């Protein structure tokens, strides 16, 4: 048996070497199909399928609060305390603040370190133990600072993997803190943490019930259901203070919270590569059929020498298996390369993307694909054996007459797959184009932005004034401003109360809100539509003023003059609390719509407030800086940095980027989808073209006699070319119609990825159909023109 298998393998290897054209084309097709599938699967497996690396990960849930005016907020400190004390559905409850920053000084230039705040139950709930040293003790959780636990990443990259790091002192935000432990990295949940800071329950902001800033993670008891837990937590909120009575608690699996947003996106991409694989598989089937058909006389001789059907099938399956093993090897190399390339591109935009690479599941997936394809491709030899006419094959020594029905099915299927992918890619391309052409409401070029954090609520108003003055005087700087928001990337929400109408306290109006300095709109070059911009005189001593954008004016005062109207604005957000009654502000200006949300989100009403008129002074803790430069803003970054440090040498500067980069980052996931789907659609189109070309060429070679007869009875070459083209285009047309039909059915799944168009966008469908028909026409014409140059007399005589 073993000897026979080895003989089969040897023969298969010889056979492949004897047909280098077939072998190269089949291997390339298989490598592309298997490679892209393996690469995408490795991303899907790592990001979506792999369980979270925590104890009892399937019982970890995120708790959020929802009010009538805001969906899925965090949990406030007092609400968390209530949950912690009263909830019986959880084995463990822990709170985190996933991201904030501190300034690290005393070791060269001041640096910003990324922190995550944790309560004492976070690490036990996740089942994580220190890599070095220890965790905070329960007592230490009641004292801010003093001790610090750092991340393994920080230990390696910033402290040179110092083996004596325990006991070393870090100066964070001006306080000396002793390192007591190093925690292993938790990339799935906290990808970029340097410092694990304590959340001290006694801190003032932990007592504000309106400050919903905590992300709460709970491990559900085995006997409890998420619905029961949500019900219990909501009941606890009902019993709490008046601010929490209208809230509802929601309980979401931790994994859904992390990857829910990209699951559909990745599933669609996986579907796309499966279609690429199917298309490639059909190409290989065509090639195999052609090759098998050409070997009819060989088959006949083998049968006459006593080979049974099973024996012949084994020989061909061995050949397929060898082909697939080689194809899988090349596919794995391609997959590894693609994953590496992806890591350099936009894969970082995905959650849990840190350790995507060649791994066990990836290899297993490739092996499964290879096995499935071996079985699928066994159809080709079986089909040939079923219709082997020994007599004619032996007599003529020629190929078998092809069963044209099979080829028709293959062409239709290939075109159908390519149509589905082309429509999907077309929809994404059109969405991306539309997003990129959204008017942002300001001039994007020559604009530099950075985050300037002070962590101080008092005395920093004058600091920012001085900073802006220094920057404005800098050569090459046309304007400078600060704001609490970054257009298209970051903004706060606020509730507004009108002076001129009855307000419903149960359903307050929620809008976007942004504190800005006087030069904000002139720096961004946003046009004033009515009234005036803020001036330096709009400070805490002046009457409170505000500006609204055009969308606000149209939504809430249609046909009225907004100037002189009055609004009270309560700005929400992490670390903010309402301080008594909020006063009314006069509307002094209306500006054009500046995109506060990402470009692919419609413009919404926005109120702008003078940054010197924040009642809580919270805005001074950190502001975004905008600098308009005359030259390339990247080149100006060093001088801007110098200017800031000339005011405060220890001022950390975070996220210094051009506005182009900011906007580009907001489209990262959309771009990733586009690049992936576009590439796969291109591949499918190429495979489809090769498939149609090969099928038509093969079909023509099988019909030489027919064309000879047609020529003899009067057909000119043009007539025959037209006939072949008509047949090819008819089959392609059926494929296109089927593909567009499937696209209509599957389009709904893509709706979430689209912008400005629906999943049934007629232009995209028409463009996809036109592209495919053009490619099909070219793929039909070339073999038809070449193949039909046959001498009819010879063709018939050959018979």
């Amino acid at each position, binding site marked *: 048996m073993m000897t026979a298998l080895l003989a089969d393998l040897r023969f298969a290897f010889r056979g492949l070497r004897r047909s280098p054209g077939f072998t190269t084309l089949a291997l390339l097709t298989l490598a592309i199909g298997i490679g892209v599938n393996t690469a995408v699967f490795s991303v899907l497996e790592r990001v979506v399928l792999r369980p979270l690396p925590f104890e009892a990960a399937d019982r970890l849930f995120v708790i959020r609060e929802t009010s009538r005016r805001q969906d899925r907020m965090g949990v406030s400190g007092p609400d968390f305390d209530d949950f912690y004390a009263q909830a019986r559905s959880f084995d463990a409850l822990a709170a985190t603040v996933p991201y904030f920053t501190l300034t690290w000084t005393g070791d060269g230039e001041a640096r910003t370190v990324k922190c995550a705040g944790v309560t004492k139950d976070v690490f036990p709930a996740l089942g994580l133990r220190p890599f070095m040293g220890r965790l905070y003790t329960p007592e230490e959780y009641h004292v801010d600072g003093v001790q610090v636990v750092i991340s393994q990443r920080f230990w390696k990259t910033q402290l040179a993997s110092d083996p004596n790091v325990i006991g070393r002192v870090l100066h964070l935000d001006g306080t000396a803190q002793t390192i007591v432990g190093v925690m292993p990295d938790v990339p799935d949940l906290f990808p970029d943490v340097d410092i694990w800071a304590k959340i001290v329950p006694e801190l003032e902001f932990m007592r504000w019930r309106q400050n919903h800033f905590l992300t709460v993670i709970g491990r559900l008891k085995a006997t409890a259901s998420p619905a029961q837990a949500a019900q219990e937590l909501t009941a606890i909120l009902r019993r709490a203070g008046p601010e929490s009575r209208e809230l509802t608690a929601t309980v979401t699996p931790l994994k859904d919270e992390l990857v829910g947003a990209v699951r559909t996106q990745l599933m669609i991409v996986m579907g796309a590569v499966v279609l690429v694989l199917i298309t490639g598989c059909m190409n290989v089937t065509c090639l195999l059929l052609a090759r098998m058909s050409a070997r009819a006389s060989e088959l006949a001789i083998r049968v006459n020498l006593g080979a049974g059907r099973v024996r012949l099938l084994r020989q061909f399956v061995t050949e397929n298996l060898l082909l697939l093993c080689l194809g899988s090897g090349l596919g794995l190399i391609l997959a590894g390369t693609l994953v590496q390339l992806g890591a350099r591109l936009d894969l970082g935009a995905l959650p849990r993307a840190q350790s995507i690479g060649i791994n066990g599941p990836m290899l297993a997936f490739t092996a499964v694909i290879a096995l499935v394809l071996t079985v699928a491709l066994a159809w080709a030899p079986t089909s040939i054996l079923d219709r082997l006419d020994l007599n004619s094959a032996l007599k003529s020594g020629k190929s078998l007459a092809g069963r044209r029905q099979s080829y028709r099915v293959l062409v239709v299927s290939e075109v159908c797959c390519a149509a589905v992918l082309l429509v999907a890619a077309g929809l994404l391309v059109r969405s991306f184009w539309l997003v990129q052409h959204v008017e942002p409401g300001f001039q994007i070029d020559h604009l530099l932005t950075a985050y300037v954090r002070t962590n101080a609520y008092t005395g920093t108003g004058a600091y920012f004034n001085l900073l802006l003055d220094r920057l404005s005087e800098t050569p090459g700087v046309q304007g400078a401003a600060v704001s609490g928001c970054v257009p298209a990337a970051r903004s706060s929400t606020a509730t507004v109360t009108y002076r001129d109408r009855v307000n419903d306290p149960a359903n307050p109006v929620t809008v976007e809100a942004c504190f800005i300095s006087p030069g904000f709109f002139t720096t961004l070059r946003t046009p004033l539509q009515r009234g005036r911009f803020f001036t330096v005189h709009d400070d805490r001593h002046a009457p409170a003023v505000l500006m609204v954008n055009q969308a606000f004016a149209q939504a809430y005062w249609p046909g009225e003059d907004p100037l002189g109207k009055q609004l009270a604005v309560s700005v929400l957000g992490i670390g903010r609390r309402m301080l008594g009654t909020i006063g009314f502000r006069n509307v002094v200006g209306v500006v054009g719509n500046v995109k506060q949300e990402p470009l692919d989100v419609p413009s919404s009403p926005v109120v702008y407030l003078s940054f010197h008129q924040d009642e809580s002074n919270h805005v001074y803790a950190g502001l975004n800086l905008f600098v308009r430069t005359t030259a390339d803003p990247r080149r100006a970054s060093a001088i801007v940095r110098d200017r800031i440090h000339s005011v405060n040498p220890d001022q950390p500067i975070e996220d210094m980027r051009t506005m182009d980069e900011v906007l580009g980052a907001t489209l990262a996931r959309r771009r990733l989808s586009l690049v992936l789907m576009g590439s796969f659609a291109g591949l499918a189109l190429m495979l489809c073209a090769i498939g149609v070309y090969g099928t038509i060429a093969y079909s023509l070679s099988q019909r030489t006699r*027919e064309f000879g007869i*047609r020529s003899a*009875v*009067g057909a*000119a070459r043009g007539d025959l070319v037209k006939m072949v083209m008509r047949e090819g285009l008819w089959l392609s047309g059926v494929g296109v119609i089927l593909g567009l039909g499937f696209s209509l059915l599957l389009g709904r799944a893509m709706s979430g990825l689209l912008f400005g168009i629906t999943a049934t966008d007629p232009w995209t469908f028409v463009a996809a159909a036109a592209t495919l028909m053009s490619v099909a026409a070219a793929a039909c014409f070339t073999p038809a023109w070449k193949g039909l140059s046959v001498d009819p*007399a010879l063709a*018939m005589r050959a*018979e």
Partner: protein
Amino acid sequence: MIQLTNLDKSVSQGNGRLFILRQVTVDIARGEFISIMGPSGAGKSTLLAVLGMLDGDWTGEYRFLDQAVHALKPKQRIALNKQHIGFVFQQYHLLDDLTVAENLDVPLSYRDIKKGERQSLVADTLDRFGIVAKKDLFPRQLSGGQQQLVAVARAVIHKPALILADEPTGNLHSSQGKEIMELFTELNRAGTTIVQVTHSETNAAYGNRIVQLQDGWVVK
């Protein structure tokens, strides 16, 4: 009708050329029934292909209905073929995927004839050859004789002035062969010029002249 003068046909072989037809000079008048005979490899079928303008790679002179075929471009030759010539082959060469009626329609479809007229011509031909009952059958459902009958019907459906037949009875038994030869005689009486390639003295006897070929030369 046909004047061949010093016609040579050769193919390259190694460093030299292999001659298939040499200095062929033949005149065929309108209304003749000619049989081309000779041993295998004599060049009979090649001569038929040249006469039918399926093969244009030769030297010498060929005049057909007073037109100098040797001076015509390939498209013009095809046009001449379409208008005046019909073919019958030993292997019938019917199209397997088409019915009898559809096979008869094929030559008409290449001749800019309107569909209505084509249908009427097909119906007339089916009736004339007595194969109306077979019109929806595929070639594989017919006997050899019936297939050749359809092939002859297809050759004459566009009323050609010349029928070229390459061993038309080679695959038929004697009674079927006789029927086909009688059909040719009938067509010839009606004015159609016929040139057939045959090995059979009996079939050659149906014609009024024999052209004998040997090693590419006309020997008689």
